[in-house]
């Protein structure tokens, strides 16, 4: 623990998966579910299924092609593409991670702005980054443990919320299936593909796993878990509010939680929304901040993973502040259009390229060796 560079911290595969699930679930519920319902309406669940089906492939690319033996995504890129091109690819990754963290904070601010209209958004930015930086500083082990403690609780809350809203659900709202154009379903699928593409951050922590060789296989299970965690949020708002209304809502899952009533005692469980959202986005910021910080130190060749914590956090804060002026609509427009291209290109394209190049290289060297022989 005193020498992170010498003794590699190992986490159980379970913890690694928990970090990954925790980092994408709550945020996904609030942002991507909204986008998917916006695009695909009541067919969002089909988009989810398709997205997850492709997600298995994407995960395989991340874990089989994107990373090497005991190497992170960035290290692998450097070994495959050589010193300069590899570094450039690494910088792209790091920027991607920083953007994700900054975007997350921005979305949190917007959401909190709904509940706390007059509180300066800087407070939320500040609080989220301080906590995230602290956990990154404490190391991946502490991060894994924190999430392992909180994720089951959050899942419990989430499941409870979805069960409690069952009385309000009208299952027929899901019909008719498939009457929309395929394009809208495809757009919805693209949202989930972008979501899973972001998990390229997984490649930065995969080397900490106790059994990294099993990750690729187990990641199928991970995608399945994600599917299960998303199926209720994707269908819930449509069932409770009907398609038209669900499309109109900015935070459909949040409004669904708000609408829960437990026999006249408790109404408006906003608390659960704030809880899930704050903690979930914290997980996400923590993971991507960790990935970015580790990425920078690997690019520079520093011994400690957390050497560049403070500068990278400050950059994140700066990027996030630069988003601050844009409205939520602009942000969602960006997320719903450009980002749907950016995320897969970086999150799937680059690891795929790295994997292909390394295979080709290996084949070439193999044939050269056989020629020599």
């Amino acid at each position, binding site marked *: 623990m005193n020498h992170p560079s010498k003794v590699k911290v190992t986490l159980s595969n379970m913890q690694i998966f928990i970090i990954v699930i925790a980092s994408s679930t709550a945020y996904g519920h609030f942002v991507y579910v909204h986008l998917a319902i916006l695009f695909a309406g009541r067919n969002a669940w089909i988009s989810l299924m398709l997205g997850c089906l492709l997600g298995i492939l994407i995960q395989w690319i991340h874990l089989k092609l994107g990373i090497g033996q005991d190497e992170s995504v960035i290290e692998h890129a450097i070994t495959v593409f050589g010193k300069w091109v590899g570094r450039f690819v690494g910088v792209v990754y790091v920027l991607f991670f920083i953007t994700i963290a900054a975007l997350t904070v921005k979305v949190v601010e917007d959401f909190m702005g709904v509940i706390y209209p007059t509180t300066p958004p800087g407070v939320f930015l500040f609080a989220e980054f301080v906590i995230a930086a602290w956990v990154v500083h404490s190391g991946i082990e502490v991060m894994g443990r924190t999430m*392992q403690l909180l994720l089951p609780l959050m899942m419990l809350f989430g499941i409870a919320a979805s069960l409690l809203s069952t009385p309000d659900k009208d299952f027929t709202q899901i019909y008719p299936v498939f009457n929309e154009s395929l394009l809208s379903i495809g757009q919805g699928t693209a949202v989930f593909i972008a979501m899973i593409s972001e998990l390229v951050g997984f490649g930065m922590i995969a080397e900490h796993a106790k059994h990294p060789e099993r990750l690729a296989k187990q990641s199928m299970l991970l995608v399945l878990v994600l599917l299960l965690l998303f199926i209720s949020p994707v269908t819930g708002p449509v069932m409770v509010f009907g398609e038209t209304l669900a499309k109109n809502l900015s935070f459909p899952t949040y409004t669904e939680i708000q609408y829960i009533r437990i026999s006249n005692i408790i109404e408006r469980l906003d608390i659960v929304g704030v809880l899930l959202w704050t903690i979930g986005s914290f997980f996400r910021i923590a993971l991507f901040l960790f990935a970015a910080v580790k990425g920078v130190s690997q690019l520079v060749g520093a011994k400690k993973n957390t050497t560049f914590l403070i500068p990278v956090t400050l950059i994140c804060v700066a990027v996030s502040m630069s988003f601050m002026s844009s409205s939520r609509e602009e942000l969602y427009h960006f997320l719903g259009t450009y980002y749907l291209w950016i995320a897969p290109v970086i999150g799937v394209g680059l690891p795929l390229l790295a994997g292909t190049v390394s295979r080709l290289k290996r084949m070439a060297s193999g044939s050269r060796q056989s020629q020599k022989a």
Partner: protein
Amino acid sequence: MASRKRTTIKLSAKGAILRAPQPPSEAQSGDSSPMRLSERLDVNLTYLKSIFANASDIHFREFRIFDGRPAAIIYIQGLTDKTEIDDNLLRPLAQPNHAVDRVLELSHRLPLGVLVEEYVHIAGAKQVTTLQEAIQMVIEETNVLLLVEDEPVGLAVSAAKSPDRAVEEPNTEAVIRGPRQGFNENIETSLALLRTRLRSTAFCIESFDLGRYTKTTVALCYISDIASSNLVDEIRSRLKRINIDGIIDSGYIEELIEDSPHSPFPQIQNTERPDVVVSQLLEGKVAILANGSPFALILPINFWGLMQASEDYYERYMIANAIRALRFIFLFINLYLPSLYVAITTFHQEMLPTKALLSIAAAREVTPFPAVVEALIMEITFEALREAGVRLPKTVGSAISIVGALVIGQAAVQAGIVSAPMVIVVSITGIGSFVIPRYNLAITLRMLRFPMILLAGTLGLFGIVVTTLAVIIHLSSLRSAGIPYLSPVIPFHWRDMKDAIVRAPRWAMQQRPAESGKANPRRESNATRKSRRLPSRHRARS
């Protein structure tokens, strides 16, 4: 770990300042060559008298033994058993009626060895040859030192009788069902209480004398078959590194050997109950007892262990589980209720049912302060009442509690200074904090409540969530003697869940905790379900 090293260095630097030099330098460490006892009694006595010149409680009694040689005993008055000395040391030596024959028949003096063998009727006796040893025996071991003319050795006879109180029921950890013996300040009594419960050679007690001036006996106890040797070595080395003026209470040791001193959370459990220590030793943990303190230290521990009371294991498991559930509920109430009240009434009023909102609003109609301020005032008052209750002499205690309850509860509400719901919240929270079985954990949580209330008052639920996150991150990074503080829940060990949050029936707990009982994971047990059923089958047949 670095922190402990640093403390050690600091302390040893302090310890290096020696006292005013005395001609025969008192051997503090082994570097000055030991001075041997002289054959001449008067030389020895002069020397010792000069050493003990300012210790008026050390008595010198000179007498002649039966063969006519002058002799002396040196002892600490008050710490030695006078009748024991009179009956079994002075009397046989001074008037050995039956020994006259032997004196006549042998040369007129008996060597000390023979004297010990034949005339000293006390169990503990040890020969000392150096003056340093002699002084040590008198001061540190509270022995009686016997010096005889013409003998270059002294005899240290143990006749210690320290001021002691009876074995009483532990005050801080009362139980309804369970043993009622508690440790007391005398380490011998405390160890005896352990030994009566652990009659095995595997039960090891290692003693250390710690503290430059106090020379406190500290005992490290463990069961060698169960505790992992790594753990014992680690604790032993931590203990040995302690270099301090004095150890007044085991709390000193706790502070010097815990993993993260800058944490509000206790990482070492303290207990007054020998049964708790024994059960923890059986799980492969290590206990430390210090003379002068009725509190034993146990480590490693985890957070969940602090939520367990010894009674959980004496009562039927279903009842124990129900009570544990209650404790966890009150753990949350204790930590969150005031801040949730503040957050909901000042930020998220829409969450309350309309009627509750209206009655709270009606109650707050006349109160002058914001809810945060009100909460802080009430919480601080409550803490003051609690603290006063501890410090006050028992005779005035009830008066204070009446005044406190009346003034704060009734009058403040009636005067419209504080709203009634806030009084309810604070009282429930106050009661809740005493449901937690470990006082030190309860106090930590009470401490954390204040930043929580402040943040709830400024940021509402978001503030509470952020504080909770900070606490959880901190808890995840804590360790107790190298074992993660939140284990076995985080990192997750399914096997140990049987005794972390719930308590499984005893027959189901066949294995020791994974982290501390690594060396010998299986409990000795035939209390399986099958064997439990046997008697009933017999009964059915008969």
